[in-house]
């Protein structure tokens, strides 16, 4: 059991994070064309609504919840100090988790029952669907059976994750958690590991820049004023956008 724990809680995260980092950087620098959400709305634009919308809003909230517990554990614990607020947080998370699961099931059914989507579906999509489904299911199960996750995440998992990030892995507390939680942790690492090699790469290129860029974009291939100025030496006019 200790070997498995060590594998899931120590080896797997480092392998996954390394693969994630190297893979993402390599993909972004050498295979930038592959960064796409590979939307299939164009081929099937009706049933997608019942899958994509609940899934994405669900995962957005659930992911932000996990992130908050990781970044400000004290804040979460302070919030949870009153039972009502704890209940509000847990129920909100659970509802969005359900929404995610429902959306995911709709997406899976849609993808494998629409003939037009076959040509744009690959093996990696299936892997992701299975992983995401198990992960969501495990998450909901944990939220239901091992209460109250938001609190013990902040007290147990956050220190563990920090210990991973600071290269001093400490699994003493986490190793005592029940196996569904460990499965959920392992699932998370697996998803992180395959992220750069799947359509999930669109997570890495969220278009947040859109919020503050001006609407219109004009790109000059070269600085026209400089290029026509006889005094400018050629070596100064190296391109900016290679």
């Amino acid at each position, binding site marked *: 059991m200790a070997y498995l724990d060590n594998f899931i809680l120590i080896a797997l995260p480092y392998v996954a994070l390394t693969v994630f980092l190297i893979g993402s950087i390599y993909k972004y620098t050498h295979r930038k064309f592959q960064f796409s959400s590979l*939307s299939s709305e164009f081929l099937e634009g009706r049933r997608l609504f019942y899958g994509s919308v609940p899934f994405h809003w669900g995962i957005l909230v659930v992911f932000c919840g996990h992130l908050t517990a990781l970044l400000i554990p004290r804040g979460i614990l302070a919030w949870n100090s009153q039972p009502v607020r704890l209940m509000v947080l847990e129920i909100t998370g659970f509802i969005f988790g359900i929404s995610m699961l429902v959306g995911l099931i709709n997406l899976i059914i849609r993808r494998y029952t629409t003939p*037009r989507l076959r040509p744009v579906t690959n093996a990696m999509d299936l892997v992701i669907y299975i992983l995401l489904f198990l992960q969501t299911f495990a998450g909901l199960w944990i939220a239901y059976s091992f209460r109250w996750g938001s609190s013990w995440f902040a007290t147990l998992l956050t220190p563990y994750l920090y210990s991973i990030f600071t290269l001093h892995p400490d699994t003493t507390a986490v190793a005592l958690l029940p196996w569904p939680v460990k499965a959920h942790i392992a699932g998370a690492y697996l998803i992180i590991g395959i992220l750069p090699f799947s359509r999930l790469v669109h997570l890495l290129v969220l278009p947040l820049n859109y919020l503050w860029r001006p609407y*219109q974009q004009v790109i000059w291939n070269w600085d*026209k*004023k400089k290029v026509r100025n006889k005094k400018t030496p050629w070596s100064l006019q190296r391109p900016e956008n290679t």
Partner: protein
Amino acid sequence: MDVRSQIAMVFHLDKCIGCHTCSIACKNIWTDRKGAEYMWWNNVETKPGTGYPSKWEDQEIYKGGWGKRNGKIHLKGAGKRRGLVNIFYNPNLPVIDDYYEPFTYKYLDLIESPQGDDQPTARPVSLITGKPIDIKMGPNWDDDLGGTPDYARNDPNMKNITPEEQEVMFQLEKMAMFYLPRICNHCLNPACVASCPSGAIYKRGEDGIVLINQQVCRAWRMCVTACPYKKSYFNWHTGKSEKCILCYPRLEAGLAPACMHSCVGRIRYLGVLLYDADRIEEAASADDKDLIKSQMDIILDPFDEDVIKAAKENGIADSTLHAAQASPIYKFVKQWGLALPLHPEFRTLPMLFYIPPLLPVMASVKKVDNTTEADKKAPLAKKWNNDWIYDTSTEELWGKLEQIRFPLKYIASLFSAGDEDVIKEVWKKLMAVRIHRRRVTVGDITNEKADNTLSEAGINAEMADAIYALTSLPKFEERFVIPAAHREQAIEMMDFTGDTKGATGFGFKSKVKRGV
């Protein structure tokens, strides 16, 4: 004044014969690929008709282009708030069925079928699934079917036309139609650029061509919704949007774009326009009725000393200025005022202008009572209930504009945001040119009448001759005045030539690099 140069175009609709040579030239070069089979960066539509994709002009469905609220413009179906909220599911995205499902035929079945009693057939198969399909729509399915109930009656431009007027059009449905060739308008205020969350779409500073960076496109597919002309297409195979690139590799080499080069009717003109980039937003925010005027106002006179000075300060090359002065576009659009943007009310300031079709104006439509005639024939002949007839007996040569077969409103809804006077002005000029040339070449029109028509149209004989020459007799170099792209400078900018010496031609195939 921020002077920029733009490659702009004019399509002369009276000359379009609807042969689709342009579409084929474009398809063969650019979109004959998996995922792009359904795309027609250049397409020719029959008007009245629903077009491609179906009913693209109806922004109630697609929410394309810009709207105006409290004096400010906003993207109708995309933008920072709406675009990001709808990013998981875009409710206004046209899907493949709005274009058509691409297909081919199993031609091999014709050869390989075993011997039998029946003629072997080549069944259509979908190019997406590879399975046999029943073809519901195809490229130019509505070609020349302007009058059929499925197409003309569903034309979004019909909504302002009274049922009586529509009836007149549909009685003539077998006769009256025109062709509308469309490519990307390379707008000054492009909605696709503004809508792209990842910033993949941009306007090229040097010549104003709007391009999509395939490395940056992430398939958020907002551009497909935002472009009111539906000229940004989603490649379902690569998961990237694609659009007309105005054949920029050809333009940079001094060649006309493939669609223009191959145009059989020689309807297409291409040249440089200078415009004031500082006033784009102001021009796009004008009232509906002032939109054409405001767009014309930001197009600058390339002969004006101040404009030339400002252009030079902005680094516009002398060769580009010369091209702007010789530009057929400037003549058609500004000097003569003959060419109008398609659907100016979309507020994207398109840089493709159309000379509205005069159509054969020789005839008018009359309502007649033909029951006596029909009774005489009965019971021998079938009774037709055609009360409307197409009357070709005009008092005057070519008849009058008021008698035109298409309601003015229809053309106005296409080219002037509904302003009929604008179209009338253009038509008067086009008619005046014809009458003037008839005087010159045939001589059966009195000088007085010809001069009157010219002055009514607000042009003189000299101008009419120039319009005639550029319309009917232009040489290749007059239709396409392509500015030098200064590729030598572009190359020097992209790479220091010293670095790539020996890496081209018969030398090394890749860059000579030192070490690992």
